[in-house]
C-alpha cells in the first residue's frame, strides 16, 4: 500500500512540474494583451509582428473587439469596472479618455509622454486625450468631419469651395435648382453623428457646450444661431433631401457618391469610396475642403479617431508603454497609413514627400485636421450627448422650438452635472 501511494505521489509531482513548465515556457518573456477593434485590412497584425521582431522579450496577445464603438466600450467597461488585469493596452475612442481617466481606469502618462513629444502630434487629438490638464492616452490615428464637394459643378459655375455657411447655402441652392440634385447632405438622425454635426455649427459660431467652469452654455446667442442655421438648411432653404433627418454616415455618403448631391459633410472614409468605381458615379469629380464657418476661416471640425491607453490594472505597464510608443511612432504611423488607410496623428507625416506622392489628398486632409476639435471632455459625455440628441432632433423635426430645445438641453445638462459632481470630485 505504501509503495503504491508513493508511486502515486511521484506521478502527481511529475504531472505538476509538467503543467508548470508548460504554462511558463520562457520565464524571461512577458506577455501583454492589446484590445483593439476589428481591422479588415490585416495591417494591424503586420505591425504587431514588426514589434515582436524588435522586442524579443515581449509577447503580444491581440484581442479583437467588435467593430462598433459602443459594443467595444461595453466590453471595455466590463473589464475595467471589474479591475481585470487581463488587458494591458486599450485602443479607445476620442470621446472616452475623460470618462476612463475620471473613473481611475487608465494610467496618467505625463512622465512618459513629454510635452515636447506631444507637440509633434496634431493639437486636437492631444487635447482629446487630456483630462484636467493631464494626458491619459497617445493618439494613434485620427478622423474629422470635412466638406466634400463636386469639383465639376463648382468649376462650371466658376466658384471656389464655400468658406461660410451663407456661401454654402447659396452654392448648394444654385446646384439644386440647376442640376435637379440635392444641395447638401449630412447626418441628422437621432444618434451620436447628429451631435458631431451640431458641434461643428456651434463651434463655428464661437459657442461651446461647456465653459471652462463646466457650466453648460447652450442658452447663449451663438448656440441659437448655430441651431437656427442647421434648421434653416433643412426647412427654410430646403437644400437637403427629405430624409436627412434619418441619415447616418452611409445614407448620406450614398446620396453623394451616386451623384445626387453637390455637397456632403462626412468623415475621411468617404474619400476612398468616392474614388471607387464600383460604388461611385463621381470618381475624380470630388474635392475636399474644411467645413465652412460663420465667417471665413472660422470653421471647425468635430474630431474622431482612436488612441492607445494603458490599463491602471496592468501588471506590465513598462512593456505596455513600449508597445504604445512603437505603435504611435512616425515609421509605424506611416506604414499604417499606407497599408491600413488609417490617418496619422503626427504632423510631420503630412509633410512627408513619399506620403504625399502616395496620397496627394493628405494635403487637404491636413487643413481639416489642424482645426479639428474634440467633443466636450467630461466623464459624463455619453449622457450629455444623449440629452443633445433628443432635444436637437425634436427641434429639427418640428416637435419643439429652437429656443425650447436649447433651454431644455441647458437645464438638463446643468441638473446632470450638479447631481454627478460629488462622485467625480472626490
Amino acid at each position, binding site marked *: 500500500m505504501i509503495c503504491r501511494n508513493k508511486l502515486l505521489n511521484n506521478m502527481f509531482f511529475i504531472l505538476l512540474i509538467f503543467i508548470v513548465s508548460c504554462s511558463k515556457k520562457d520565464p524571461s518573456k512577458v506577455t501583454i494583451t492589446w484590445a483593439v477593434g476589428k481591422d479588415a485590412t490585416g495591417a494591424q497584425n503586420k505591425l504587431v509582428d514588426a514589434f515582436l521582431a524588435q522586442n524579443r522579450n515581449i509577447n503580444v496577445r491581440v484581442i479583437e473587439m467588435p467593430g462598433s464603438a459602443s459594443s467595444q466600450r461595453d466590453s471595455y467597461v466590463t473589464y475595467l469596472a471589474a479591475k481585470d488585469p487581463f488587458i494591458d493596452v486599450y485602443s479607445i475612442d476620442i470621446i472616452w479618455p475623460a470618462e476612463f481617466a475620471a473613473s481611475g481606469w487608465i494610467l496618467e502618462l505625463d512622465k512618459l509622454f513629454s510635452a515636447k513629444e506631444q507637440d509633434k502630434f496634431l493639437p486636437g487629438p492631444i487635447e482629446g486625450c487630456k483630462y484636467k490638464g493631464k494626458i491619459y492616452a497617445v493618439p494613434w490615428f485620427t478622423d474629422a468631419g470635412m466638406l466634400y464637394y463636386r469639383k465639376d459643378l463648382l468649376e462650371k459655375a466658376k466658384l471656389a469651395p464655400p468658406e461660410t455657411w451663407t456661401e454654402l447655402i447659396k452654392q448648394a441652392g444654385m446646384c439644386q435648382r440647376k442640376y435637379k440634385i440635392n444641395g447638401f447632405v449630412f447626418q441628422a438622425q437621432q444618434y451620436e453623428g447628429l451631435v458631431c454635426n451640431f458641434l461643428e455649427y456651434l463651434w463655428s459660431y464661437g459657442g461651446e457646450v461647456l465653459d471652462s467652469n463646466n457650466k453648460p452654455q447652450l442658452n447663449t446667442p451663438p448656440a441659437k444661431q448655430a441651431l437656427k442655421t442647421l434648421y434653416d438648411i433643412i426647412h427654410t432653404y430646403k437644400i437637403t433631401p427629405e430624409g436627412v*433627418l*434619418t441619415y447616418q454616415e452611409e445614407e448620406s455618403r450614398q446620396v453623394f457618391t451616386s451623384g445626387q448631391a453637390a455637397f456632403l459633410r462626412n468623415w475621411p472614409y468617404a474619400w476612398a469610396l468616392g474614388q471607387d468605381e464600383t460604388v461611385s458615379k463621381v470618381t475624380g469629380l470630388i474635392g475636399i475642403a474644411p467645413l465652412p464657418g460663420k465667417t471665413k476661416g472660422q470653421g471647425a471640425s468635430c474630431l474622431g479617431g482612436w488612441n492607445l491607453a494603458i490599463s491602471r490594472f496592468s501588471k506590465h505597464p513598462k512593456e505596455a508603454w513600449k508597445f504604445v510608443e512603437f505603435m504611435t511612432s512616425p515609421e509605424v504611423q506611416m506604414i499604417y497609413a499606407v497599408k491600413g488607410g488609417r490617418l496619422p496623428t503626427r504632423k510631420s507625416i503630412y509633410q512627408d514627400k513619399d506620403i504625399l506622392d502616395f496620397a496627394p489628398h493628405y494635403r487637404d486632409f491636413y487643413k481639416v485636421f489642424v482645426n479639428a476639435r474634440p467633443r466636450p471632455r467630461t466623464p459624463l459625455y455619453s449622457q450629455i450627448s444623449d440629452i443633445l440628441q433628443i432635444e436637437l432632433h425634436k427641434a429639427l423635426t418640428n416637435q419643439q422650438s429652437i429656443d425650447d430645445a436649447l433651454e431644455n438641453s441647458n437645464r438638463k445638462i446643468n441638473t446632470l452635472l450638479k447631481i454627478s459632481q460629488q462622485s467625480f470630485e472626490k
Partner: protein
Amino acid sequence: MFNFRKYSFWFCFPSLLIIAGIALYPVLHSFLLSFFKFNLHENVIRFNGLGNYKDLLIDTRTREAFYHTFLFTISSVSIELVLGLLLALFLQRKFIGRGLTRAFSLVPWAVPTVVAALLWRWIFNDRFGLLNELLFRFEFIDTPVAFLSSSWLARLSVIIAEVWKTTPFIALLLLAGLEMIPQELYESGKIDGANAWQRFSNITLPLLKPVILISLLFRTMDALRIFDTVYVLTGGGPGNATETLSLYTYKTMFSHLQIGLGSTLAVLTFLTVTFVSAIYLLILKRSAN
C-alpha cells in the same frame, strides 16, 4: 422499498440549482440593485430606497417609453393576430405547392431581427427606398417621403416592420391549432346547414381559442421587450418619439453605466410583463374550465 417521494427532490435538485442560477438569481439581483445608486464609474454602491423608482416615475421620458412600448405591443400584436389567422386559414387549404408556400411564409420569422430591421431601414429610405419607389410609380406621391423623420410615420414604420417579422410565428401556432380540429365537426356542420361564416364562428373560433390565447401570450411578452427593430430603424428617434422601455434601459445601463437606475427600469419592465402575462393566464384558466 425504494422511496421515490423522498429521493425525487434530490434527483431534481441539480437542475433546480442551474435554473435558479441562470433565471432566478439575475432577477433577484436586479430587484436588489434597483434600490441602490450604483454607477460603474465610481464603483460605489449607496442605498437609495425607493429613490430610483420615484425619479423614474416623475420622469416624462419613462412615461413616454411606457406609452411607446404599449402602443407598439397592442397595435402590432392585434394586427399580427388577424393577419396570422388569415394566413393560417389559407395555408390549411389544400392547393398545389402548399408545402413550399408554408415554408416560404416562415422566411420573415427566420431572418434575424437586426437584419430584418436593417432591410426595412433601406425600404423606408427616402432616396433609395423601395416603398418610395412604389408610391412614386403609382403616383400616390410626387415628392419622396421620409418615413422615419416624423413621429407618427416612424411609429407606423416600426409597427409594419414588427408585423412583417412576426406574423408567420402566430400563423404557425394557429395552423397547428387548426390541424387539431376534427374534420367531422365541419362535416356535421355542413349537414346541419351551417354556411362558411357560421362554421368559422361556431366551430373554428371556439376550438381555436386556447391556441389563440397562448400565441397572444407569447407575442405580447415578446413585444413588450421590443428592442432591435427600434434600435436599428430609428435609434429611438425622431426626437425620441419611438423610444421603448428596453431601449431606454439599454441606454441607461450600458451607455450611461447607471446600473442601479437601469435595474429599476428593468424591474419595471419585468413587473409589466408579469402583470400582463398573469391576466392572460387567468383568462386561459377560465376558458379551460
